[in-house]
């Protein structure tokens, strides 16, 4: 089971997961999977349903704790961090886009985008400004005062991308971001994600089973049955 990919540009990886094992009850989800994420790159994690790709993403992001293995963020071990530190990490260094947005229905879109900042304790004015900035970039400024229940799926996902990027994170984790969208809306979201992440130098870990979505990445990691089968080296 391979754990380490070739480093693309010789730089140290931002995030390195190695030999991760995790089971849900009796069903093993990860059997020694591992991968690394380098600064500014977009990595696609591909596999069929049930292959464990989402689980790998959750482990890398510190959402799930593997039963064994390690996840290093700039050399610091995430898996043994106390919850408060890990949450801080997720708030400030990571961003998240999920398949179904997970925008909070009670807040307006603008408030949703500003959420990570609010959780970090930033001032309201600050949060509003940056939220407006990112909504503009993602083209959802016109629905800023609407609630998530009133906007289309594509708009929602773009808002989720804005939320993921609002805190200027190091890594954005995107789990099937276009899964619930039609191909046009999906293209829009991916193009924008690509553009904005590239612009701010944010790395993206992109879990998907669609090849056209994975094509936006610089390289791909293939998972099958909880283990990484092959890695593609980047040109």
């Amino acid at each position, binding site marked *: 089971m391979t754990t380490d990919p070739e480093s693309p540009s010789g730089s140290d990886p931002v995030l390195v997961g190695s030999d991760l094992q995790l089971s849900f009850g009796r069903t093993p989800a990860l059997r020694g999977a591992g991968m690394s994420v380098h600064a500014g790159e977009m990595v696609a994690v591909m596999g069929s349903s049930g292959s464990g790709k989402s689980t790998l993403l*959750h482990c890398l992001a510190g*959402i*799930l704790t593997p039963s064994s293995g390690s996840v290093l963020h700039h050399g610091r071990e995430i898996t043994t961090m106390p*919850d*408060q530190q*890990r*949450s*801080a*990490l*997720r*708030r*400030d260094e*990571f961003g*998240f886009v*999920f398949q179904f947005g*997970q*925008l*909070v*229905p*009670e*807040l*307006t879109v603008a*408030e949703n985008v500003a*959420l*990570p900042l*609010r*959780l*970090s*304790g*930033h001032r309201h004015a600050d949060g509003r400004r940056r939220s407006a900035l990112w909504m503009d970039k993602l083209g959802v400024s016109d629905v800023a005062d609407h*609630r*998530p*229940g*009133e*906007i*289309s*799926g594509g708009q*929602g996902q773009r808002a989720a991308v804005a*939320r993921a990027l609002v805190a200027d994170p190091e890594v954005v984790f995107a789990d099937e971001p276009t899964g*619930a969208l039609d191909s046009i809306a999906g293209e829009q979201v991916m193009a924008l994600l690509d553009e904005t992440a590239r612009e701010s130098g944010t790395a993206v870990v992109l879990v998907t089973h669609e090849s056209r979505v994975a094509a936006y990445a610089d390289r791909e990691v293939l998972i099958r049955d909880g283990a990484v089968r092959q890695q593609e080296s980047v040109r």
Partner: protein
Amino acid sequence: MTRRSSARARLGDLALGIRLAVGGDRTPWGRLLLTAVGIGLGVGVLLLAASVPTMKQARDERQNARQEIAGVLSHYPHSSRYQDSHDPSMLVTRASTEFRDQRIQGRALEPLSPDAPVPPGLQRIPGPGQMVVSPALRELLRGSGGELLKPRLPDHVVGVIDKEGLISPNELFYYTGTTNLSEGGTTVAAVYPGDSPSTNTRSLSGQMWIILSFGVTVLLVPIVVFVVSTTRMAEAARERRLAALRLVGADGKQIRRIASGEALVGAVFGVLLGWAVFLGGAQLVPHITLLEFSTFASDIRPVWEFAVLVTLGVPAAAVITAQAAMRRTIIEPLGIVRRTKPSSRGIVWRLVPMALGVVGLLLVGASSERISQLQIPFLASIVLLLIGVPLVLPWAVERVVRWSSARSVTWQLALRRLQLSSGTAARSVSAIAVVLTGVIALQTVLATSVATFQAQAHDGPTHQVATPSRHEVKVRGTLEHPGKGMAELADALEGLPSTGEVDGTAGVRFAVPEQQRGPRRSRYTGATIVDCATLLERDVVTRCSAGDVFQSPEHSRRTPSGAIRPGERLRATSTYHGSAGLEGTPGEVTTWRAPAELKPFEVSESRQYRYDMSYLLITPQAAENIPWWARNVELGLDFTASASPDAIERVRNVAAEYLEFASVRRISGYSPLPSDDAMVFRLIRYGLLLGTLVAFALIGCGLFVTAAEQIQERRRPMAVLAAVGARRRTLGWSAFLQNGVPMLVAVAVSVVVGLSLGVLVVMVTSLDNLAFDPLGLLGLVGIAAASVLVVTGLTMPALRRAMHPEGLRTE
């Protein structure tokens, strides 16, 4: 750049919680309002219940104030330490009458000195011929029946009793001034200056107290449970909301704070609303009369400790439960977001409160102290047991749905849904389960009490048993004036338009000294003055001649001193005539001498006539030297067929003219005045019934809201099912089952726990004759079943709306 560790940041989290609570996703304020209303109703009811002790206390205080001028009955020598040293400042006597099944009570006052105390609620003592009445009595006198009442209360109304002189707003009471009390006999009381008679707050007997406190606890706990479970409304949505936040990077403490903020908003609004409900209810309550009792609005104030407990406790409880419920969100937010099944529940810790409650009750029962000393452990154990029910219920529901297999589609839908969210389902019926448990236990205890009372009544001395009588109405009393004797009264009564024949007998009450029981101890014997013709006519004796006196042998058998001996001197007293015994002497006394021969007669079985109850029968000739004031009369009469219902009032008016302390009662359908305990028992039963209804109503609302919330939650799946072709009927029945299955489990648990609790309490309070109330039980189960139907029915419109394809929209 994080700036987490500041108080501002913490407040920020709370503020976020508040923001989330206020911003509903369909309608802002909608969910918040619903929560607040639910909590508000519950809090309002709790505050009203907490006002009952103050109501009682205020009432007692006013009662005591009135008692202050009740004085000391003069025929008990040395009953007041002021008697020897002072002269009385005022004489007081009581009067009462009945008018259309209502009691009217009054006091006649005769001030003897300028500093005679003024009764509470009055400006001055009414003069002779003057009357100060309660507001209700004034209305009565002014109203349509006034003329019928006036003859008995002839005095001129000069004022109205103020509030502090009244015990309840609808009381019929009066004070009147008079001048002839010094000859009023031993029922006149003397008020001595500076004397403060001991206040007698009547305390409940032990059994009454148990039943009352048990009942109150049993009804209050569900309200509390209801309030707490209302704070958890829409918890599934809240879990998801906060799980999303958790994924994005909120840590455990933050989530707890945010949840607290959310919970606080609803709770605080709810408490405010609750106070409003209480104040509104306090305006309504005085208009309700429960068994002749009513209260003043100003008396309705909650016991302040309880009020504070509720006002602060409800938000605190909301916050605590919200935090506790966030456990899963903090640990596995992914699971929530993906709506996976939660891990199965443990049973052990859930049984702890129940176990503690049972142990507590057993300890209380085994203890040798009286129950009233062990109030707190007793009630605490009951509360623990009751609280155990909503804890056990989710586990029970989960087990039941897991174990059942689905046959038809309807069942399948319901079961799978329940399997996924057994917690929510159980929560919605938890308050009802607690009510059911409590009421079932209460029914058991009440049934046992009734059985015990009846047993006691049969064993102990009989209370006044209704005297069977030939006549419809009996008039009893003591003659007031020498000139107005029984014959005149009988004529006057017969002269009334609606009366038929009047039949009257006179009687005497003799005191027979009983040396065995101590000096000055006597036994009272009733005698009837009856003529020979009547005796012979009614076959009481076979031979009779003028001047005969008969004695019943049974009388001799029953008395330790034996029969009355010929020549024995018997004292006849009147409590209503003679000087007021101011120097400690009893009222007027006369002596009668038994003749040389006392013939026997048998007391008949039928006891139709008064002399059937007496042990001495005296022919008029032998009773000549018994003065008029020593005789009491009893007349029986019938009404004609065309008599109006108010005819009896006319009889009362006539009787009041002739008799002192006249009592006019219908015999048929007359049940004797229940004893104090029985009265209280009835009051408690009615009160508990009322409380149960309120509790059920409240909880029914809660159930409805939860069911509606469920349907709202499941909008999308419903729409999908409808689109795929599920019939409305299938979904409707499925919804019914979804409500019905948890209710069934709740009823089962309630019956088991309720009956056990009832039995335990009975054991602990050592009431005998364990009895159950199967009809009541069935009634409760029926109510539970009906409520499921009603709630499902009421949520049908919402279901129909949810099935609309609108719900299919992906956003």
